[in-house]
């Protein structure tokens, strides 16, 4: 990994998820965690942990462009906080990712924003309630000058 990636708070956050276990997959473009790979390599003495990991499995992707944008705008720690909070709040999380996008119809094309996408397997009531908690957290904890650069979408699959 290059200096930009290793120095990023987001990478530090992702490293926290590993609990000392080596990542089995890392791509230059994306930083990808595969908890399921840990499952394959584990022995029987860690069954309880494996099950817990499997229950809380996360397939997390943060694009290189997103990291670069956040680092350049001083938003990397905010992104890390948002990912951490999403991980905490969305109970049936299947996938968590962050990428850049542009609003086509309204704002200048050269002004990107970060899109955090969460895929969950929960029912509508739970998904909307957890989404609402995330929004309340953002409204109270993240300054508007920072949160204006972030959107979150929750997809039930």
């Amino acid at each position, binding site marked *: 990994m290059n200096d930009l990636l290793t120095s990023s708070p987001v990478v530090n956050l992702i490293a926290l998820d590993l609990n000392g276990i080596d990542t089995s997959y890392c791509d230059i473009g994306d930083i990808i965690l595969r908890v399921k790979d840990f499952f394959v390599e584990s022995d029987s003495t860690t069954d309880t942990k494996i099950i817990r990991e499997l229950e809380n499995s996360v397939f997390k992707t943060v694009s290189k462009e997103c990291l670069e944008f956040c680092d350049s705008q001083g938003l990397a720690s905010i992104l890390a906080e948002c990912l951490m909070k999403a991980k905490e709040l969305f109970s049936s999380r299947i996938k968590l990712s962050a990428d850049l996008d542009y*609003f*086509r119809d309204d704002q200048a094309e050269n002004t990107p924003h970060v*899109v955090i996408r969460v895929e969950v397997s929960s029912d*509508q009531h739970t998904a909307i309630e957890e989404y*609402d908690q995330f929004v309340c957290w953002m409204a109270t904890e993240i300054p*508007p000058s920072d*949160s204006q650069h972030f959107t979150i979408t929750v*997809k039930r699959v």
Partner: protein
Amino acid sequence: MEPAEFLKTAELLKAQTEEAHLRTSAGRSYYAAFLYFREHLKQIGLEKTRKPGYEAHAFVIQCLKFCEVTEGTKASQYLRDLQQVREDADYHLEMPFMQNNADDAFLKAQKVIEDYKNGITAEKEKMLLKKASAHAKTKCWI
């Protein structure tokens, strides 16, 4: 016409099974919520007077974002997220769009309007108008 009329259209569309209907439903849900807040801000005295057609969405969403009233800030985030869903639905045709997505956009649009109506007070709205207007001035929107 009341912006909420678009919610009825969204509901009719999401009752269909074709993906194009579901994607269009999400767009109507977003516009129902966005137009509700645009009209509400206008009612209380905040309207984009300079280049009204330019950054019309950003005007509403950012004025609410910087209003320093939780009800407004929360509504802003809902609108921005719904705007993202609407753009995904209309532009990202490679991304799957299912019944769940249309249902959730509809519910969020209903909820953001209801939560705001239930939570806002005259005193909070006075503060909202003051702070949102100040932000609009810094952006040369009014």
